[in-house]
Every structure is written in structure tokens, then in C-alpha cells.
């Protein structure tokens, strides 16, 4: 592995087993840190509001990012639009710790993602399946997260993406050398990465879950399905008692295998965010369809 990549994936390694929370301002960032978040993700509006209000969703305003960086000691990540390498350059110059090239924001380029090797700041990108994950890693992503369906409060898409990834990785490990070139073609993924996955039975970078996590049980489910950490967006600040829910999701992510602890931390949480049935969303309303 290149030394640069060691540092980039190294930070993701440190975030494992933790929860990364979407925040739009300093006040929310402080709540997240106090609840035990391993990092916060700065964005202009949380996905549920982007969904409701519509319009173009962009990088968080610079002063908001700085305000958030000023109040917490944990890493601060920020979202940039797909293909918007200038937003990424600005975020890097602000010294954010990770950039999320995210389908939750309105894509700036419908053909190309950012050439992430050009940056010192590490990138995380969303993926629905192995091909998409390996294309992003081929472009320099140092962490993959499932896309899920952001702002839906519905875990079904994140589960689909985690399971798809797991099944496709397992399949690769059963193939012979001579089958890999064709497999790389089918997946639309670089052969050296396909080869690596077939030998190692996992992605070459950490694999986190995101999109639709609304309860401690949702977070634990993602961990069971192979996610190494969990991103929570709208779920927390759209719930009745954000502080308490944030705290519970952190505990549930660590103790995902212990049903007694999960039951305890699921108590007295009030109402979770209402959520959406994925089947009622039109194709153009699905954020996970953005990026390729």
C-alpha cells in the first residue's frame, strides 16, 4: 500500500466500531461529541430536509464548517458534491479530516467522480455494490460506505447494499484466476482490485454503513451485516430526543452482539423519525441512484 494510502485508511481504522453523526452547526456537533460520536459530518442540511425542501444541495457553508471544527476535538468530515473537486479543494484547505463525495448532495458532474489521488485529505464514497465500491477505490477513496437511502429513516436499502457487497465478495473468493478478467469486466472494476478482493475476501479499505439508520437496532443490524462503523444522518436530529438517541446508537454499535445491552439502550427513546416506505419513492427521488 502507498504510504499516503496508509495514512488515509489509517484514520478510518481509528474510527471503527464507532458512530459518525451528521451535523449542520456547532450546537449539534457538541451534542454528537458528548454522546460519544467518533467523528461528525458537516453538511448544509440533513438529508431528510434536503428531501423535503428540494433545491440544490451543496457543500456546507465555509463558516459553518469552521464553526464546527472550532468546538469539537473529534475528526470533522464534510460532504462535497459528486465530481465537484473545487468544493473538495476548499474543504481540504480548511483542513477537514475526511471528505465525503456524497450522493446526498446534488451531483455537480454526471459523468466523472473526483480524482481523489490528487488530494492529501482522505475521501469516503458511497456504494451500492462491489463494482461501484471498487471503482471509487480505484479513484482513490480510502473508505467505502453503503449509500442506503439517506433521509428515509428506512434501513432496507443499507441492508440491501451491505448484503450485496458481502455476497459479491464471497463469490469472488470462489473464482479461479482465469475467471477474474471477465469478472472485472462484468463488475466494471479495475482488475488489480478485483484480484485483491478475491485473495483477501474483503475490501482493501474500511467499509462503513450509512443511509436510513434511525434506531440503535438499525445500527446493530448494520454491524452484524459486516459494516465496521455506522454513519447516522437524519435519524438523530429528527427524533424526539436527539441527545439520548445519539448516546444509545453509540452504545448499540459497540455492543451490537449483546441483545440485553441493546434492549437496555433502546428503552425510553421516545418516537424515532417517521421514515418513508422506499416503494413510494419515485426513481428520481432516490438519492442512492446518484453516482455510478
Amino acid at each position, binding site marked *: 500500500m502507498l504510504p499516503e494510502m496508509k*495514512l488515509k485508511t489509517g*484514520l478510518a481504522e481509528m*474510527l*471503527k466500531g464507532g458512530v459518525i453523526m451528521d451535523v449542520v452547526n456547532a450546537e449539534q456537533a457538541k451534542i454528537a461529541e458528548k454522546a460519544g460520536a*467518533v467523528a461528525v459530518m458537516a453538511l448544509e442540511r440533513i438529508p431528510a430536509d434536503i428531501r423535503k425542501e428540494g433545491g440544490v444541495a451543496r457543500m456546507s457553508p465555509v463558516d459553518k464548517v469552521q464553526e464546527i471544527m472550532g468546538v469539537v*476535538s*473529534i475528526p470533522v468530515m464534510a460532504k462535497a458534491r459528486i465530481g465537484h473537486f473545487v468544493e473538495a479543494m476548499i474543504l481540504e484547505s480548511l483542513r*477537514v479530516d475526511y471528505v465525503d463525495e456524497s450522493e446526498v448532495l446534488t451531483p455537480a458532474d454526471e459523468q466523472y467522480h473526483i480524482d481523489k489521488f490528487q488530494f492529501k485529505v482522505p475521501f469516503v464514497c458511497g456504494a451500492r455494490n462491489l463494482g461501484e465500491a471498487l471503482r471509487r477505490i480505484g479513484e482513490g477513496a480510502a473508505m467505502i460506505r453503503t449509500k442506503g437511502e439517506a433521509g428515509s429513516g428506512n434501513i432496507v436499502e443499507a441492508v440491501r447494499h451491505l448484503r450485496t457487497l458481502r455476497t459479491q465478495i464471497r463469490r469472488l473468493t470462489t473464482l479461479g484466476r482465469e475467471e477474474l478478467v471477465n469478472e472485472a469486466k462484468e463488475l466494471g472494476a479495475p482488475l488489480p482490485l478485483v484480484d485483491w478482493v478475491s485473495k483477501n475476501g474483503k475490501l482493501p479499505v474500511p467499509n462503513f454503513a450509512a443511509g436510513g439508520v434511525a434506531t440503535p437496532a438499525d445500527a446493530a443490524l448494520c454491524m452484524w451485516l459486516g459494516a465496521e462503523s455506522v454513519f447516522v444522518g437524519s435519524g438523530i436530529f429528527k427524533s424526539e430526543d436527539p441527545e439520548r438517541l445519539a448516546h444509545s446508537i453509540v*452504545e448499540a454499535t459497540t455492543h451490537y452482539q*449483546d441483545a440485553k445491552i441493546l434492549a437496555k439502550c433502546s428503552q425510553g427513546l421516545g418516537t424515532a423519525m417517521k421514515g418513508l416506505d422506499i416503494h413510494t419513492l419515485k426513481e428520481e427521488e432516490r438519492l442512492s441512484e446518484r453516482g455510478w
Partner: protein
Amino acid sequence: MRIGILAVQGAVEPHRVKFENLGVESVQVKTPKDLVNLAGLVLPGGESSSMIHLLKLNGLWESVSEFVHQKPSWGLCAGTILLAKEVISPAQESLGVIDITVVRNAYGRQTESFISNLNPSPNWVDQESLEGIFIRAPKISRLGPSVKTLFTHHGDSVMVREGITLASTFHPELSESNKLHQYFLSLCQESR
């Protein structure tokens, strides 16, 4: 001999692999009962504020504190912050088992993370330099009288030992070499 790896959050898996390579079994420590029959405990890298939060649940803080005051332990990065007597920038509660002061995120943010060769001090077992991976690393700004430096980087102590306690500010679990893990295992073996 079994080694525990504190697993409330952080880089747990790379340590498991290192110990496996050295033929030693390791277990994840998430609750007080996981500390039974361990020869030593690794407190891995991660986010120290998040770890403290999780340690305070389920009585783990007290159990881990008792363990590290009696048995060998090795803190790395966030783990060093947990083991230190004093933490600054910002000040933070700690287990206070090794007499050092630690400054959090002292090198800066992620874009200032770096890889560099470390120099062994005369207290170390050989004179070979070692790869040091520093990720949003803390600095050790003060060493108590009985704390010995094992490795330095530009004059700063980056790995230290006091009695049966080790602390390092970099990440040997992400490098190729197994030798620091081997060193910790011998320390655990000697103090059984």
C-alpha cells in the same frame, strides 16, 4: 497466555492479527467479565473521548482501571491518552497509570498526519530504526522521573515505558514489523 484488546471502539483488528502472527490468542474486551485471565491489555488507537464515554457504561472504567494498575498494559495513540496521568488540549479524564502528560492532536489535523523513521533510545533492545505512523497523533510533553523513553522522533519521546506500562503515540499495528508486539508479549510473560 491470552492478551486482551480493549474493543469499545477503534483499531482493534490489526492488533488481533499481529498477536495471531506471533502465535498468541487475543480477546476483545467490551465488558468487565472479558478481563478475566488476561496476561495484559492493549488500549488501541481510536477516539479517546468516545472511548471514555463507552468505558463509563457498564462499569468498565473501574474494571479496566483496576486491571491496568496491576497488570501489563500498552496504550497506543488514544490508548496513551487513556493511560496518562495528565491530558491537556483539551483537558480530559484519564486512568492515570503512567506518569506522563499528553497533549491531544498535537501535530494538527489529518492532513498533518505523517509517516517517519523513529530513532531507538539507548533503553531500547537494539539500534535499528522503526517506521512510525502518526495519525492525528498526541505528543508526550512531560515524563515523570521513572518513565523511560524507548523511541524518539525529532527529539520527542514517542514510545515510553514505566514499569509494566507501555505508551506509544504512533501505530505499529499498521506497520509491517511485529517487534513492538513481541516486546509487549515478553513484558506480559515476565510479569506473570
